[in-house]
């Protein structure tokens, strides 16, 4: 395609490097993938703080039995918006930020395929975030129907619900545009010689993730549009009295929702697959099987959605099908974990912060994987569905999974982004405190769920008091620990030891390590040759 045609002379490329607006215009009119990546990352970090504050507010109420701080209706708003903001505002945009920064540099492309659409897909996000924050202040407050927005509870909500629906629509459009951009970039703009099977794992996982996004974001849009018309235009998609079915909402939502959880974890797998070989000083074990495993997980994700719905009362055959299909996912996921460990085996390892987060990821994410396998067993799921066991499970895969991988990736590539080394000592503090407080917060939730505490509860019986107290203490510790990360990043941007071109001495490193640190504004205007 035309986009790969190299710029004729180096002189010309040099001119381009200064040809961009400065000040606020640089960001508002940004078309450079690195600038847009930076915008995405700061946006997602600020949403992470907002979502985190909501989480701490709800943990505060759960510190002791009884209602001390919030009314239950506000508590439900907190749990709902914590989920919505973390999923759509923090985790997903963070991975898009990484994709923007790294994919062109990893495949040897000058930029993303559609630079202006890239700008638009980012600048859709702040208005969506604004709608979500504003929804707390409209009559009735933000939506309190849970992040899953189950009908018909959504019909009872106030205008905050409509704002959330609009926000999700906008973020969905942004995701779809981002995905189109990523797919086009990866398929058409790879440097000569870089075949698909030579591509870095991060690009592979994002390619697959982008297809998942394009497949399921419209499904979510459909579900929430039906919710909107049920609320305001007298339709009865989810209303039995009008011939609809509330359970149909759940089918549609989870047809989006299950691939969505892989959208949030596959790029994490990619980041981890980049980091482990570098710090083990040994090539990634089973590259091809990693690619196939990622693709299998993505394909399986479309046929397992109803395992979120075992308690709705499905027929026996339905339960068995979704149970078996779900259990199959353990196999490709297991292959990935085995490959990572085989990469470490007989390596020559060092343990800088990115490696610590990567190892921490494997260790804790695997626990979340095992509880996922346990939850796949329908009779067990029926017992612990909608309990804190599920809360523990998805925080083990989303916090210890996606978030830890994001931290690992941030420490790994910060030297390339900023040109400075981050503070290794503080990075290690960040890791160890995050690891400890994460487990103090979420491990006891397994016990709470098994013993019978339902999720989304503003208040609970006395038997759950001690573990809730522990979880709240851990939660505040985890939240405060993240301030270390902010400090380290700001410090690293402002200065620090000069980072080399290839600071981690990645032997078989990607193309990004052939560039100077910090990476110049424009890179690979002349595509490199990949042997």
């Amino acid at each position, binding site marked *: 395609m035309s986009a790969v045609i190299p710029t004729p002379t180096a002189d010309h490329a040099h001119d381009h490097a200064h040809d961009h607006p400065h000040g606020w215009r640089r960001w508002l009119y940004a078309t450079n993938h690195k600038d847009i990546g930076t915008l995405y990352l700061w946006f997602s970090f600020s949403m992470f703080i907002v979502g985190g504050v909501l989480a701490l507010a709800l943990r505060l109420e759960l510190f002791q*039995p009884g209602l001390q701080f919030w009314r239950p209706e506000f508590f439900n708003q907190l749990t709902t918006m914590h989920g919505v903001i973390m999923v759509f505002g923090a985790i997903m945009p963070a991975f898009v930020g990484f994709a923007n920064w790294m994919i062109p540099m990893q495949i040897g492309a000058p930029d993303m395929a559609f630079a202006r659409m890239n700008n638009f897909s980012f600048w859709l996000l702040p208005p969506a975030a604004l709608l979500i924050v504003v929804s707390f202040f409209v009559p*009735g407050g933000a939506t309190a129907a849970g992040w899953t927005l189950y009908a018909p509870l959504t019909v009872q909500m106030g205008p905050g619900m409509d704002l959330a629906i609009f926000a999700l629509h906008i973020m969905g459009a942004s995701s779809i545009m981002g995905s189109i951009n990523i797919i086009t970039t990866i398929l058409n703009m790879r440097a000569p010689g870089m075949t698909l099977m030579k591509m870095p794992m991060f690009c592979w996982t994002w390619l697959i993730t982008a297809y998942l996004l394009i497949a399921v974001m419209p499904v979510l849009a459909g579900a929430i549009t039906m919710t909107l018309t049920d609320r305001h235009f007298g339709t009865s998609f989810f209303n039995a009295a009008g011939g609809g079915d509330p359970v149909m909402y759940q089918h549609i939502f989870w047809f989006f929702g299950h691939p969505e959880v892989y959208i949030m974890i596959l790029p994490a797998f990619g980041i981890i697959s980049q980091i482990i070989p570098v710090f083990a000083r040994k090539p990634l074990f089973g590259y091809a099987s990693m690619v196939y495993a990622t693709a299998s997980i993505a394909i399986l994700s479309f046929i397992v959605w109803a395992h979120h719905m075992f308690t709705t009362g499905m027929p026996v055959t339905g339960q068995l099908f979704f149970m078996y299909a779900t259990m199959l996912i353990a196999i490709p996921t297991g292959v990935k974990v085995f490959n990572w460990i085989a990469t470490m085996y007989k390596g020559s390892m060092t343990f800088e912060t990115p490696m610590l987060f990567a190892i921490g990821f494997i260790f804790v994410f695997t626990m979340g994987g095992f509880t996922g396998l346990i939850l796949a067993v329908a009779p067990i799921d029926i017992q612990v569905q909608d309990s804190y066991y599920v809360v523990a499970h998805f925080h083990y895969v989303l916090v210890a999974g996606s978030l830890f991988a994001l931290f690992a990736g941030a420490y790994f590539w910060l030297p390339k982004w900023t040109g400075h080394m981050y503070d290794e000592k503080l990075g290690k503090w960040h890791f160890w405190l995050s690891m400890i407080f994460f487990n103090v917060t979420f491990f006891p939730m397994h016990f709470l769920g098994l*013993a019978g505490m339902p999720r989304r509860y503003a208040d609970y019986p006395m038997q759950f008091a001690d573990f809730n107290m522990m979880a709240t203490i851990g939660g505040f510790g985890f939240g405060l620990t993240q301030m270390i990360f902010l400090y380290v990043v700001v410090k690293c941007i402002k200065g620090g030891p000069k980072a080399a071109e290839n600071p981690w001495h990645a032997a078989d490193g990607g193309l990004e390590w052939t560039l100077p640190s910090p990476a110049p504004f424009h890179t690979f205007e002349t595509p490199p040759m990949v042997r």
Partner: protein
Amino acid sequence: MTNTINSRTTLLRAACAGLLTTAAGGAAAIQSRFNLAPPVTQIARDVHWLHNMMLIICGLIFVAVFSVMFYSIWKHRKSKGAVAANWHENTTVEIVWTVIPFIIVIVMALPATRTVVAMKDTSNADLTVKVTGYQWQWGYDYVRGEGEGISFLSKLATPVAQIEGREPRTSTYLLDVTQPLVVPVNKKVRVITTANDVIHAWWVPAFSVKQDAIPGFARDTWFRADKIGTFRGQCAELCGKDHAFMPIAVQVVSAEDYTKWVAGKKKEMAALQDDPLKQWTLPELVARGEKVYQTNCQSCHQANGQGVAGAFPALAGSKVVASKPDQIQILLGGKNLMPSWKALSDVELAAVATYTRNSFGNKSDEVQPTEFKAARK
């Protein structure tokens, strides 16, 4: 706070307890602390067994996999002079570690399949109870078997003072109900669930029974409790503001006690039956309505009828309350957060309407049960 039961000692116990520890059942409400509630049905025992099996297999794999990882972290580190190997592929190994998990998964799925089939077999029940989820209470109707025709509502009995911390909390805090579901021991009870407004879920952990209650649809599940006692659970599907405040209690009694209970309950229901033709006076309705208000309306609209600004409208000086047709319509049909109250009887609705029209400074005429009866059509 003083009312957190032995929080320090239990935290300590929590810290050193293993995964499989089950706390011995102490006080009636504390059914479990670390593990699934002690089972009192065969299905629940099967689920326990399945969970233990899964936990042990997963635990063994976890230990095996991560001992390899920690071994190489220990041995293959640069600081110890380890030199990296360069191999990065081994087809045999890769096939082996794809096939073995596949076999393990099949081994896990086989016994689970048996339990799935058993859980779904709701045929040949001795007693059938319809459970209806309301915002925020449960309705029980005995539709078939001994006790047929019995019908009552069951809601949270824990006083607000305990929730707000003005009174010490009891061991059954948030689990006390006004009336438990009473069932005979060793009899197969089929539970049909449905809901009046939004989705709820009827969950009794000791039975391993959890079934969503879906408005407009009937779903079923079953249990056969083999132990006498009271078993408690809570609503498990987010259903709005008082989701955490609609507990479930099932009292399992002997066959003789059950027969006695049925007789007593039927007598009690006959006594409560209101004469449908009676014309009520305003003071009678207000007196009855105050009770209905306290149990159903007060948690949102507050004891003084002032509501909560921004969330629950005040009834004092309300235009809707002043207009009889509007009020009847909203009570029967609901609006936004206000659920429909059509599950209440005509007399109860007339009473509570009259009460709100003549309290909190409101002054108006009474509403007769016949007016609600007419409006229902």
